């Protein structure tokens, strides 16, 4: 399924709007990664474990959103947005939302 974060699908006409679709996931870091990150904190630089963790959870949120759009019979999801909020210490919620539409 094609996703964009602009208001339209270029070159295609939107024939039907299905409204908002969303997918979210709340992830906690696991201890091993937190420990490695603690060491990395001394010298700075990228914390690869966290980067991967957040990418995985963003992919999960996106696939939930796409599943919802597919159930509605949409083909692309336009105007996709991502937000992150921390729910508790060490746990964060990743939300992906967008507008499910049908194009010709």
């Amino acid at each position, binding site marked *: 399924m*094609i*996703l*964009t*974060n*602009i*208001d339209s*699908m*270029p*070159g295609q006409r939107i024939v039907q709007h299905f409204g908002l679709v969303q997918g979210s996931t709340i992830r*906690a*870091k696991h201890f091993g990664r*937190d420990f490695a*990150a*603690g060491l*990395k*904190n*001394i*010298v*700075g*630089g*990228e*914390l*690869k474990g*966290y*980067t991967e963790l*957040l*990418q995985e959870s*963003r992919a999960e949120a996106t696939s939930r959103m796409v599943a919802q759009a597919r159930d509605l019979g949409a083909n692309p999801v336009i105007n*996709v*947005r*991502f*937000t*992150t*909020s*921390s729910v508790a*210490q*060490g746990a*964060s919620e990743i939300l992906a939302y967008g507008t499910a539409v049908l194009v010709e």
Partner: protein
Amino acid sequence: MSIELLISIAIPVFLIVVGRVVGSSIERKHYASIEDREARFHGQPALSTKQSDPPGAVRSASLATGSVVLSVDHFKRFLSGFRMIFGGEVRSYSSLIERARREAVLRMKESQPDAHAYINTRLETSTISSTTGNEGIGTIEVLAYGTAVHYDRAKGR
């Protein structure tokens, strides 16, 4: 007693020195890598506007994302502690944020390297907190996402 005192001072000082030496070398390497890769994407701009440049000439569009989690070193964390007392601009963190943003935009571009432009690029920054409390200070995640577009015409417009 005095040995205990010595150790309790020596360990933080050691961490700060290690952070200063290794941290600045990591930062230099990162800047070099960023500049090198940015040069490669010259002519494939990330735009914050929704309108693609030659209107109506877009062949395909799809979402591109890139993210990075970056942390400051102990030395800069230590410096920023002083800044928290006196107030003012925290310069030691500005290079962290700048590097993270540029890196995230580059990763967004690298996820779809053959696109002609990346329109409606958004940057989102969030802080990473640690389960144990204060340790996560100075760790941020930057997400860059936008719509990678291919124009019908050649790249030269």
